[in-house]
């Protein structure tokens, strides 16, 4: 008997190690195989048992469930019943309740579960199936084919493939990867670098973490291909310190595959708890051992990046998409998606949602399908009030906008962004004024301090929203009352007048900040005000005339 249990950090946080130990004790003859996670987080710890008839899933499993699960297999073996175990798949209800056994934890064949079967997994093709750091598993599932294909081509032909695939940066900005690579390839320099941005700080996102923990060779292969294409022999993976499991897995994987990727070499560097280091120039400063302050662009990192050398800075998911493109061809990848958003996006469904997890699908799925049909609505059972897409710098969407398709341009048209693909669901108890305030507060805490709109604007934003909460300002402040001050309006302000101030401040932050931290904080703030004005003490919000 083989027992498959994930060793992903999320599974471990839900108790997977304890469950694995309990199985090892209760079934000493069984082989416990620690695999990557399928990404069905509401079922973790998910245990799959193969007693010779394929893998059957059970989840979420508690230590106390172990004896009864093992009994099911013993019983059916004694009764000679090969179709293990006896459960009636309940065909009613939503995606998660279907395929649920009488005991509430039997899941059946996980690969046939609608949450998995309805996905298009290109980047996460190995999720749930392979042992993360096993070179044998990686090779047996098509690993290194992309790198071998790339090495059989001219470097410029590799870049052409990446361009043809239509792959855009998955970190949030959506810049075409092929164009970035070509810029680095054309730059003349003795040393070039590939830097992987694995500083996944956005709340509601975990795809980078899952990829690094579950399929580290895929990322390493993508980086090696990038290195070959642009002429770089050194790569860095900058991982946030909140991901110790990912760091350990990557280091182990790099040690094991060093000879396979040579002459390319990769090194993991640990971040130090600064959200802003997810911004590429700030990340480069941090790698160099400096304060993680944002650099002004130009010069572009592609021309003057790490230590002043031409550098490709790509997100984990961008680089991890490369092995598929080089193995199956640009056309195979570009065949998925809509408009200018080609390929698949690993979407992360999180927050107050019944069926949270990783959902990789072609661009074009609507927000409503994601949170209602796939996510199953809220876990609390209350109606959904708001969904934040794209992390702390992404807009809040009301159910009225649930027909928006997942696509860079479609979200931009609705004053939002898809960012790194995180979708956080809130039920009707959410206070949108508190969420807007949090967006400003987060910006204040994490601002690198280099540019004024972000450093000061965020704090002024918190203060203004606090005043708004208290019903607006009662009269002129101390400074305005000074005889020297002639140009301040002064006087009391009602909620609408405070909101005008916020809108003005947001405009300054949006157009005046150096990077996306200050520049995008207005998205959650203004979307909260626009779509949920009742939480801000006004009936509707009219745009202030320019």
């Amino acid at each position, binding site marked *: 008997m083989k027992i498959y249990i994930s060793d992903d*950090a*999320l599974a*471990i*946080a*839900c108790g997977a190690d304890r469950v694995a130990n309990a199985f090892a004790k209760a079934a000493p003859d069984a082989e416990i195989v620690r695999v990557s996670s399928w990404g069905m*987080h*509401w079922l*973790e710890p998910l245990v799959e048992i193969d007693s010779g008839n394929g893998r059957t899933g059970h989840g979420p499993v508690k230590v106390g469930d172990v004896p009864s699960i093992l009994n099911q297999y013993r019983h059916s073996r004694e009764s000679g019943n090969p179709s293990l175990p006896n459960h009636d798949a309940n065909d009613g209800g939503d995606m998660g309740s279907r395929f649920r056994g009488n005991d509430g934890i039997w899941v059946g064949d996980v690969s046939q579960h609608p949450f998995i079967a309805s996905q298009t997994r290109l980047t996460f093709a190995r999720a749930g199936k392979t042992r993360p750091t096993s070179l044998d598993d990686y090779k047996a599932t098509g690993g290194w084919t992309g790198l071998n294909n790339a090495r059989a081509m001219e470097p410029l032909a590799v870049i052409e493939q990446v361009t043809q695939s239509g792959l855009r940066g998955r970190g949030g900005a959506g810049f075409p990867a092929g164009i970035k690579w070509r810029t680095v390839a054309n730059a003349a320099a003795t040393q070039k670098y590939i830097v992987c941005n694995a500083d*996944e*700080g*956005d*709340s*509601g*996102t*975990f795809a*980078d*973490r899952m990829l690094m923990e579950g399929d580290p060779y895929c990322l390493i292969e993508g980086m090696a291909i990038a290195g070959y294409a642009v002429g770089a022999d050194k790569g860095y993976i900058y991982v946030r*310190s*909140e*991901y*110790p*499991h990912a760091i350990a897995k990557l280091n182990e994987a790099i040690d094991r595959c060093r000879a396979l990727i040579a002459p390319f070499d990769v090194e993991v*560097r*640990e971040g*130090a*708890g*600064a*959200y802003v280091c997810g911004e590429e120039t700030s990340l480069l400063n*941090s*790698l*160099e*051992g*400096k*304060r*993680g*302050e944002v650099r002004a662009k130009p010069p572009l990192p592609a021309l003057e990046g790490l*230590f002043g050398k031409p550098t490709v800075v790509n997100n984990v998911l961008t680089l991890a998409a490369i092995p598929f493109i080089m193995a199956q061809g640009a056309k195979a990848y570009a065949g998925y998606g809509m408009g200018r958003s080609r390929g698949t996006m690993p979407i*992360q*469904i*999180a*927050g*107050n*949602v019944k069926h*949270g*997890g990783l959902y990789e699908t072609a661009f074009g799925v609507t927000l409503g399908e994601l949170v209602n049909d796939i996510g199953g609505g809220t*876990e609390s059972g209350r109606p959904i009030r708001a969904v*934040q897409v794209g992390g*702390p710098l992404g807009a809040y969407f009301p159910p009225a906008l649930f027909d928006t398709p997942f696509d860079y341009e479609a979200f931009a048209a609705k004053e939002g962004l898809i960012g790194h693909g*995180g979708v*956080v*669901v*809130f*039920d009707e108890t*959410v206070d949108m004024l508190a*969420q807007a305030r*949090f967006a400003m507060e*987060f910006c204040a*805490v*994490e601002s*690198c301090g280099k540019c004024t709109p972000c450093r000061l604007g965020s704090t002024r934003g918190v203060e203004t929203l606090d005043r708004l909460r208290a019903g607006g300002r009662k009269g002129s402040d101390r400074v305005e009352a000074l005889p020297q001050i002639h140009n301040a309006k002064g006087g009391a302000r009602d909620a609408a007048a405070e909101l005008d101030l916020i809108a003005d401040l947001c405009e300054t932050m949006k157009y005046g900040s150096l990077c996306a931290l200050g520049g995008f904080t207005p998205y959650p703030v203004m979307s909260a005000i626009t779509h949920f004005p009742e939480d801000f003490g006004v009936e509707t919000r009219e745009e202030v005339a320019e």
Partner: protein
Amino acid sequence: MRDLREDTELAAIIARHIGREGPLLPILHDVQKALGHVSETAKRQIALALNLSRAEVHGVVSFYHDFRAAPEPLPVIKLCRAEACQARGSEALAPKVEAMAQGKAKIETVYCLGLCSVGPNAMAKGEVHARLDEAAARALIAEVSA
């Protein structure tokens, strides 16, 4: 008086990383791990070794949330307070956890541990914990302060 153990430890850490590109962050991480904080002595010694000014090293140390100026006597529990955990009740839980932890553990805020579908989450001693409620938080505090 100088702490000899600190001096030896620092020298060993610096020697381990000084040949690398951009050695400062790896050095600071190891110092934080080995000594529990980055002291004035450490800043000066690192500055000397890397040919930086003390102010430059101080600027880097104070920029990042991970490095402490003084050691924390209590075990630290980092509780996630970012949006996805907020949506799952972290804001109601946080004050209760802080009250429970009085004198036993230090509760700090972290923004996102990447377990956003199973919050509220926390990290302590390098281990992650999900689906926290009051009972689970109490058990976690007891575990880390044992």
